[in-house]
């Protein structure tokens, strides 16, 4: 039964995405290559003083990304700190400095880690003017960076890699906004709320009173998923009936998360002029996604102990209306896309099962990864894979006609270094700094021992990968974790972007080497297999020891 449901769910996702792949990928390619500006875009360019026809060097592009994001952090931070004076604040006070910093960074970096309970912390103005705006533009920034890298492969002897402001605005106006409007309507039809009611106090059947929060949820919900953000309107995120009322809205939300990341490879193939390259990339993503989903589902269905046995699987922390498949599919999607939304509590998964969401993130978010970030992350891995396989065939390595020399490999290698360093150093520091360790043990960790360690590891993995999902069970709203996780998110987002854009610049400046029969074909199954192996191996070698100390030690018990 489980197997059939799992296959059915997977088939649904696969069919919808396969249908979307071509038209949507081509549409996005058109968005970023079209010479024409829309009227509204021309208006915006005039206001912000951008020459839409002028392309930028990678340095200028990077300055745009960094400046825009820095301003974003500043705005979201300021809005929170002044919350009590803002309209529609629902009478909520300003969050603490460390929490405001954490939240601001979290939404600008497309992480959407939430150290707080949204309905009890943030009013509508901050949610709308701060967080919702970032939900759109942080996603647009991610796609822009990926497109810039793709241009690096597509351009020949070019000093420029596109215009950041144009990419940002087009991505927002032509891709995210229209789909968000349609998606919000669908979600509202499905029962997701959309109001400005504030808190409603109701009398329950037993006569007690309950305060039920309302709010403009559907409009937030759709971009939370479409932009692989993940920051919920409510603390319970997509397991809350106001955010995700039915099994079919859950499936719709899954598709929203996967739509852009799984279609971007087509955009890539289209822009470099060889659609087979896009198919190769999407295949690697799909293989890893399916493998991860299958393992997680198998582990959760098998369950462990008496309670799961009676329930027919590990149902703790899962919503009855979604069941195991609905939960594991959502979890695989959400952690594989750097969304971080949850419709079940990963902390309550079986020990080994809980390792799978963590692994999805540790893979560097490439299954299929966040909007844009998934594509550039896997292209970096492809550069590494091409380097090794190029040597194996006796050619100095090249990818899509671009030579992978010392500079390119240096940038790719530095990119690979960032995430593991942040995850491991963050986790280690939490236990190594004497003052910090006591705080972490006494206030943050609610499940001492191996599982507590896993929770901290999960938090830093989530932050450094800009995923934002939480293992729950961990109180993260402390000065140390707010700050450390904030820094991890910030570095985990922008340091890799620096390397990606530098790589884009270096590739764009190169000429293309013609393809001969001596060239390694990067669209064949062998390369797909190799890239998959490199992705898994890099992760496995880096994280095996800590996983052995955490989920493996717990799961093998």
């Amino acid at each position, binding site marked *: 039964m489980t197997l059939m449901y799992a296959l059915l769910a997977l088939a649904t996702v696969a069919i919808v995405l396969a249908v979307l792949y071509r038209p949507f990928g081509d549409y996005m390619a058109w968005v970023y290559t079209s010479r024409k500006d829309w009227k509204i875009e021309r208006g915006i360019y005039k206001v912000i003083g951008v020459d839409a026809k002028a392309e930028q060097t990678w340095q200028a592009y990077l300055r745009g990304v960094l400046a825009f994001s820095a301003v974003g952090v500043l705005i979201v931070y300021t809005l929170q700190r002044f919350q009590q004076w803002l309209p529609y604040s629902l009478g909520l006070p300003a969050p603490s400095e460390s929490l405001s910093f954490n939240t601001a960074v979290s939404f600008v970096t497309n992480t959407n880690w939430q150290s707080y309970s949204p309905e009890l912390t943030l009013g509508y103005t901050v949610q709308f003017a701060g967080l919702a705006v970032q939900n759109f533009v942080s996603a647009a920034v991610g796609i822009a960076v990926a497109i810039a890298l793709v241009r690096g492969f597509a351009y020949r002897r070019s000093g420029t890699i596109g215009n950041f402001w144009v990419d940002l605005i087009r991505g927002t106006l032509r891709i995210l906004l229209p789909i968000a409007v349609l998606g919000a309507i669908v979600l509202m039809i499905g029962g997701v709320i959309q109001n400005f009611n504030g808190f409603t106090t109701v009398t329950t059947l037993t006569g007690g009173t309950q305060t039920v929060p309302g709010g403009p949820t559907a409009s937030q919900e759709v971009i939370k998923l479409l932009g692989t953000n993940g920051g919920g309107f409510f603390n319970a995120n997509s397991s809350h009936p106001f955010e995700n009322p039915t099994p079919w809205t859950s499936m719709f939300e899954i598709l929203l998360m996967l739509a852009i990341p799984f279609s971007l490879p087509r955009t890539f193939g289209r822009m470099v002029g060889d659609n087979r390259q896009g198919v190769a990339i999407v295949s690697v993503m799909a293989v890893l996604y399916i493998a991860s989903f299958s393992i997680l589902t198998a582990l959760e269905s098998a369950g462990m102990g008496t309670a799961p046995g009676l329930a027919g699987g590990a149902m703790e922390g899962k919503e009855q209306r979604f069941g195991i498949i609905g939960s594991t599919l959502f979890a695989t999607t959400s952690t594989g896309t750097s969304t971080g939304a949850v419709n079940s509590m990963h902390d309550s998964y079986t020990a080994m099962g809980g390792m799978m969401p963590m692994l999805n993130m540790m893979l560097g978010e490439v299954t299929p990864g966040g909007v844009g970030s998934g594509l550039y992350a896997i292209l970096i891995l492809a550069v590494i894979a091409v380097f090794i396989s190029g040597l*194996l065939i006796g050619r100095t390595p090249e990818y899509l006609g671009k030579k992978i020399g010392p500079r390119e490999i240096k940038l790719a290698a530095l990119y690979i270094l960032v995430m593991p360093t942040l995850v*491991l150093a963050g986790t*280690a520091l939490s236990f190594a700094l004497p003052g910090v360790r006591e705080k972490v043990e006494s206030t943050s960790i609610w499940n001492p021992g191996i599982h507590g360690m896993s929770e901290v590891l999960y938090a830093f993995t989530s932050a450094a990968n800009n995923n934002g999902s939480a293992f729950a069970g961990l109180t993260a709203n402390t000065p140390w974790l707010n700050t450390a996780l904030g820094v991890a998110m910030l570095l985990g987002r922008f340091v890799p972007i620096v390397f990606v854009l530098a790589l884009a610049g270096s590739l764009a400046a190169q000429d293309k080497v013609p393809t001969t029969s001596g060239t390694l074909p990067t669209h064949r199954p*062998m390369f797909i297999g190799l890239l998959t192996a490199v992705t898994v191996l890099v992760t496995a070698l880096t994280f095996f020891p800590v996983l*052995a100390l955490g989920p493996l030690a717990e799961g*093998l018990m």
Partner: protein
Amino acid sequence: MSTLTEPRTTTAGTPGRKSGFTWEQVRAALPGAFRKLSPKEQWRNPVMFLVWVGAALTTMLAVVEPFIGGPADSGGTVVPWSFTWAIAIWLWLTVLFANLAESVAEGRGKAQAETLRKTRTSTMANRVTAYEPNTDAAAEQAATTQVSSSDLTLGDVVVVTAGELIPGDGDIVWGIASVDESAITGESAPVVRESGGDRSAVTGGTRVLSDRIVVRITSKPGETFVDRMISLVEGAARQKTPNEIALNILLASLSIIFVVVALTLNPIASYAAAPVSVTVLVALLVCLIPTTIGALLSAIGIAGMDRLVQRNVLAMSGRAVEAAGDVTTLLLDKTGTITYGNRRASEFVRLGGVREQDLIRAAALSSLADPTPEGVSIVELAEAQHGEFDRNTVGEIVPFTAQTRMSGLDLPDGTQIRKGAGSAVLAWIEDGGERSASTLVAELDEYVERISQSGGTPLVVATKDPAGAGRLLGVVHLKDVVKDGLPAKFAEMRAMGIRTVMITGDNPLTAAAIAKEAGVDDFLAEATPEDKLAYIRKEQEGGNLVAMTGDGTNDAPALAQADVGVAMNSGTSAAKEAGNMVDLDSDPSKLIDVVRIGKQLLITRGALTTFSIANDIAKYFAIIPAMFMGVFPQLAALNIMGLHSPASAVLSAIIFNAIVIVFLIPLALRGVKYRPGNASSILGRNLAVYGLGGVITPFIAIWLIDLIVRLIPGF
């Protein structure tokens, strides 16, 4: 001249050297290996430097431990007292093995360098004090002074006579001499060097056997060709190539990740489990960082250069060797590379009414005194078809001149025999006042045309009797003979993604025919040096990498423009200066070997990198359970090799890590076997051998080592 199919193994100085590695080599390399233990040497290789630091650290621990109550528990397990010592020793051995690999690789060049050094011993030179090229080119009147060869500088002019060593690299400005160049090329037959033209370059240290020459020195002291050769074969001048640098960066960043893994492990373990001892942590780090490839990387590079040297090719930079692996267009000179140097007679075509034996006899007689290879081949063919000729036929030899475009023989009885270009021979007959029958001429034209179309050279044979009556006999078909096995070779190149282009001075018709026969992809007919240069530029603009050979001064621009330019040692110094490789055998066909060696070099690097990284999986399965089994007994489930104890597991992994280097030294020196094929098939094969092999091998090897290690008391 070697053909393409037989690989050359003889070398200057050390003929018949094999590429294996023997005990003598190891013995010779050992002192160097120990010398390289100095941290100053290790610093250049980040991966091995980390091992060095680990070895130093564990040694210190091993020394201190007895005073602080034995080795600390690790991950909740008690380790034997000898554990730290054992790890320290094996870590030092790991470093030593890496050094050994490099020393052995370097040692292979040493012997050759020694031979070369002998030629460099300072000789006395007769320097012309005031050389007057216009009035006294032979420097017979000018005064000379005796100076040491080491004092000669650029532009000096010296006189060298028979029996003397040439004191420095230079160009002959006057005279002709036979020179023994065996000191450099290993070839004992003397070569002729003369002023002007493409054979004017002489190399310092070679000996003039006959005659007297005036040489203008073209090298600075200490920068002569021999000096460069010495530093090249010794590996002293070796600079890291771009690809090697890139690989080093990748390896270094992998190492950094693993350093982070090791450094963060204890803080994390201290909360959830129990901290691991420093020794085990070092062992974990060393097992994870790619030591195998790190240890062998420089040996691979040196050995790659050495493989070229063994084929008597000197690469002026490692970059050129690497570029050779990437070459996509190969410019090959027709003569000597694709065809045997000379045309050979392949057929006698008689005209109607002529007896075959008359034609053969006339052709043979006219060629008997002709020393050119074409003439010799005509006689050979005639004898093969007709039987032996009396070689002492008397008569007056008429040599070939550019004016008559004929050669031949005037017999004592007045009969004249001529062979030559069709139009010239016809004119010669008409000169006797007689017109050949038009039907005959038409027939002749037909044969000539047919032979030309097929890429051959028609040689018309005719006689005039004493009375002056001319008679056309027939045509000798001279043919460019394509070397055996070439079409297959070129097909192989095509599969590897390399286009072969034939360069020839022939007319397009002839060129096309030979190109077709040899199976090259393209040809450049009636090629001037400018055409070559233009062709290379055009190819490079399309992103191709071009390799070519050349020897003349007018080849120099093209040699410099090509990505891989192999200059013939027989060529001018300008050509040698412009190319980035010099072929001492002056065998243009070696270009193909050079490409092969370039590819082999890269593949060897890739194979060992893949192997090294793939090894990590097994090492993890040995070490991770060992590290924490004391605290989490359930991790024994990961001990799939069934290793005896945590201590023996860690030590076995470290021992494997060290000795695998030794096992792979021969492979690093010899290079991975290269079988031509398209990219996918090569990748598939190498991934299976080095990727899959790299995953499986250590599981078996570590398990075997553990069987022995567990016998050590305490383990």
